[in-house]
């Protein structure tokens, strides 16, 4: 069952009282609902957020303190003593962790504190051994091995704090995309479990945002060498990534304004906007199949091929979910236009790229305006008219004329843009009245 708190119940009762005033429900029903939730609340294991945060923060400070002490690299200790010291943080952390899981498992404060401490302690132990043997290994390997060894801690204690440290540290493995993909795949079930418990909690949002950044960086690093050869391929790859964010926000979090969904929408619109220009990157002539094939023959592109395989897997999962759920979510036309971006991108291999994307961008803007007006959502209508205004302005500024004409034209477009927005708002108000 989903966790609830007192505030949520109070809000619900307040809302129900409003309904009672309008004689939609009876007072007895409200009392019964209140009693029902109060019982759930009473039976819930106590998880005092304040104590949990303090325990986690305390463990974090102690862990960082130990790392700082180690950084000093005490010269008067000989190798044997340093080796013994190297094991101390981990052994101490393990003892506290084992005690917590066996005796204090119910306490979120103990679990968070012990997990955060052990996660940092392992990194500290590896760092001391690196100092003893003068190892100058790269940061990716250091973060990968420390976080890989910390993974059982997160799952055993179900620690949100340790998982946040894990996600942040995983970002630093971007020098080796296999490390990044491995760490992100291994933490995915845990994030799923956490968000399943309470999708709308602050930690679930932080975890899912950090996770999406991690995957974004892995894709970016895996494909960055190809920017010069084919913007077409990268557009599809990042289109699928942005679409994945959009679908997770829509299907899983089911909130129109969820940060993950919004970031997906903005990324899709940004890519569509970039594709409007006829530059070196979006020019068809620049895409040369032979160059691409030659490049792929070289072993060094394993990273790229691996990234494409991972993105293809994401695309297949997305296609499955879209076909399974599209009826239930009743997508509006503007959402269908957004979803079609990666598919539209496929046409750029066979036809004039910038023309297709110019048409696509205009349709997208109009669909958003239509969506906003039809369903009385001002932000959607304004966003659509903003995109349209941006498009017209960009096209106008690209025309080869002098600055005075460009200036007057920009002001003119700006005024038209404001008028359209005003008309939109008016018509939406009228719609509202009609509905009443």
């Amino acid at each position, binding site marked *: 069952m989903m966790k609830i708190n007192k505030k949520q119940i109070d809000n619900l009762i307040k809302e129900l009282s409003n309904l009672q005033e309008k004689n939609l429900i009876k007072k007895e029903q409200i009392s019964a609902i209140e009693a029902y939730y109060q019982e759930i609340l009473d039976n819930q294991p106590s998880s005092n957020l304040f104590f949990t945060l303090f325990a986690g923060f305390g463990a974090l400070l102690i862990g960082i303190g130990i790392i700082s002490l180690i950084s000093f690299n005490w010269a008067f200790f000989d190798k044997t003593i340093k080796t013994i010291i190297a094991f101390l943080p981990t052994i101490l952390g393990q003892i506290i962790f084992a005690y917590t*899981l066996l005796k204090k498992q119910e306490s979120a404060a103990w679990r968070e504190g012990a997990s955060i401490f052990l996660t940092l302690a392992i990194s500290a132990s590896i760092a001391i*051994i690196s100092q003893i043997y*003068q*190892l*100058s290994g*790269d940061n990716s390997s250091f973060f990968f091995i420390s976080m890989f060894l910390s993974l*059982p801690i997160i799952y055993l204690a179900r620690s949100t704090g340790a998982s946040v440290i894990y996600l942040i540290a995983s970002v630093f493995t971007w020098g080796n995309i296999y490390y990044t993909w491995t760490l992100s795949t291994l933490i995915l079930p845990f994030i799923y479990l956490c968000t399943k418990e309470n999708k709308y909690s602050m930690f679930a949002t932080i975890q899912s945002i950090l996770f999406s950044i991690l995957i974004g960086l892995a894709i970016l690093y895996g494909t960055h060498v190809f920017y010069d050869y084919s913007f077409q391929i990268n557009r599809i790859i990042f289109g699928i990534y942005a679409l994945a964010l959009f679908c997770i926000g829509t299907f899983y979090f089911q909130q129109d304004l969820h940060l993950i969904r919004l970031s997906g929408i903005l990324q899709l619109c940004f890519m569509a906007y970039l594709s409007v220009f006829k530059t070196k990157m979006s020019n068809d002539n620049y895409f040369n199949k032979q160059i691409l094939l030659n490049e792929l023959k070289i072993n060094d592109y394993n990273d790229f091929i691996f990234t494409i395989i991972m993105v293809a897997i994401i695309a297949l999962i997305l296609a499955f979910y879209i076909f399974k759920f599209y009826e239930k979510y009743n997508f509006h036309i503007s959402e269908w236009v957004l979803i079609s971006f990666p598919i539209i991108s496929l046409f750029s291999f066979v036809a004039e790229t910038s023309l297709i994307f110019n048409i696509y961008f205009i349709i997208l803007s109009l669909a958003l305006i239509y969506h906003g007006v039809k369903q009385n959502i001002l932000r959607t209508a304004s966003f659509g008219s903003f995109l349209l205004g941006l498009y017209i302005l960009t096209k106008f500024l690209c025309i080869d004329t002098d600055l005075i004409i460009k200036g007057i034209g920009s002001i003119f477009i700006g005024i038209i843009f404001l008028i359209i927005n005003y008309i939109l708002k008016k018509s939406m108000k009228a719609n509202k009245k009609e509905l009443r």
Partner: protein
Amino acid sequence: MKNKNLIISFISLMMALQLGFLIYLIKSNEIILKDGKIFKFKTAPVDPFNAFKGRYVALNFDAGNFTLDKLPDSMSCEYNRRPKIIYALIGNKDGFAYVKNISIKKPNDSEDYLTIRQFYCDEEYKYDDNLKISIETGSYKINLTFPFSAYYLEETHAPKAEKLYNDNNKNSNNTYALIKINKGNALIQDLYINNKPIKEYFN
């Protein structure tokens, strides 16, 4: 009870994994120290700060910069075509280590070699006084980053170590690192400044 036993087994497994890795890390480095062959590498230290591992003297080696007349087969200097790992065959000349050649294929364990994950290579150009332009010489300039690029010191000692280096910089024959090499892996044993181990300056 059954649940508790399961938790104990998982915790034990996790502890074994974590401690096992730390022991493995120590053991693998002890093998290099025990079986490795020793080489002297001329150095050029500087002094940055690594927040995770403390204060160290960053090392650069003369042996890492050299010119090759010909690259190994199928190797290219182009950024996108460069292999990720190469092997540097190490030899001894006048008491100091030098790179005899580089290879894409892993050499036999009987040979002294280093595994290199970071390197730079470029075509060599020479300025022609008559034509007033730079012309390719046909050779390649190679720069290798050796896997022993840092020497860790106590935080308060590092600035002094840097000063010591600067004072002794002119006579670089006296500034070198002792490196143990075993099957492509390497460890710094000691850093010598003016023919004296750096630690002795702080005793």
